């Protein structure tokens, strides 16, 4: 089975973008292995923001399934060498 050896796994640059009144991260840009699932990005956001529930989406009016691999998302939605991931915090009912 042809899989990349760890040394040659392609990394994807992810830029996390706060929208609405979501807190802005000090470190908003990082690299992640392309083979990782989007769930990893979501979990990272949750831990950084100390919130369990976030609304996470990419620039094409789409909220990726956590099961998608980051490299697939980058191929479809990446711009200028990075994958921009927008996040918003839970809104209150009212």
């Amino acid at each position, binding site marked *: 089975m042809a899989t990349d050896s760890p040394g040659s796994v392609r990394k994807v640059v992810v830029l996390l973008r706060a929208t609405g009144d979501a807190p802005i991260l000090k470190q908003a840009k990082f690299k992640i292995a392309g083979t990782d699932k989007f769930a990893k990005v979501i979990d990272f956001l949750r831990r950084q923001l100390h919130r369990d*529930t976030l609304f996470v*989406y990419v*620039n094409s*009016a789409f909220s990726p*399934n956590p099961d998608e691999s980051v490299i697939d998302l980058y191929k479809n939605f990446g711009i200028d060498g990075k994958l921009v991931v927008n996040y*918003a915090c839970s809104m209150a009912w009212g």
Partner: protein
Amino acid sequence: MDIKQDAGNVFPWDGTLTSSDFFRAAHMFSDKWRRFNTSVPPWLWVPCLKRRLASSHEVEGYLSLEKTSLFKSSEEKQDAGSLILKEESNMLENEEPFDCATLGPESDYHEINHYDFHVVYSASYKVPVLYFRAYHSDGQPLLFSEIEKGLPGLSVKFLSESKWTFITQEEHPYLNRPWYKLHPCGTSEWMKLLFSTHKSLTTNGSTIEHYLISWFSVVGQVLGLKIPLEMLNCS
């Protein structure tokens, strides 16, 4: 007959659709779904006639995806929340209806449960709403706790924390039977958010074409359903 405004012409856009927008969006969605999801059942438009106070000449209806089955095996504990859509008719064909990933020794199998999904327009919220019901092979409805176990994304705890939606049970708008639904009160807000970073989608008037795909990318996660990424890339 009034000329209804294309959703894309309402600026700033409020995340909603008119019912004729919904009719068009639903047909576009089901066409695309059929094109990109050939191994999965299609969404079918079910037209309905419903008496309204103001007489309407529009065709009302809803999108329907019925008799899908949830397969779970011990191999899939990691993805326990994923719904694998297989038309029931395929189960009766004997030439390799399943691949190895979904079949295991019978002892690994939980019972197969069946799900029906409808996408119905809400005139009060002006957005689509997902209705669903689940039942055993003998037709007995599943208890909600059983549904939660099968689709962890639906857990009441998860949804109540998320504040984007919650589940209620009420009478289906056309079928006069109780169905579960994902409440639409947050929908226009998160639809607005989704489209906010892609301004050209709302100003080009292609909101209608993309609306249900975007909507489904969120709602489908609750059900563990995925949209193939290719569906997004045709203009």
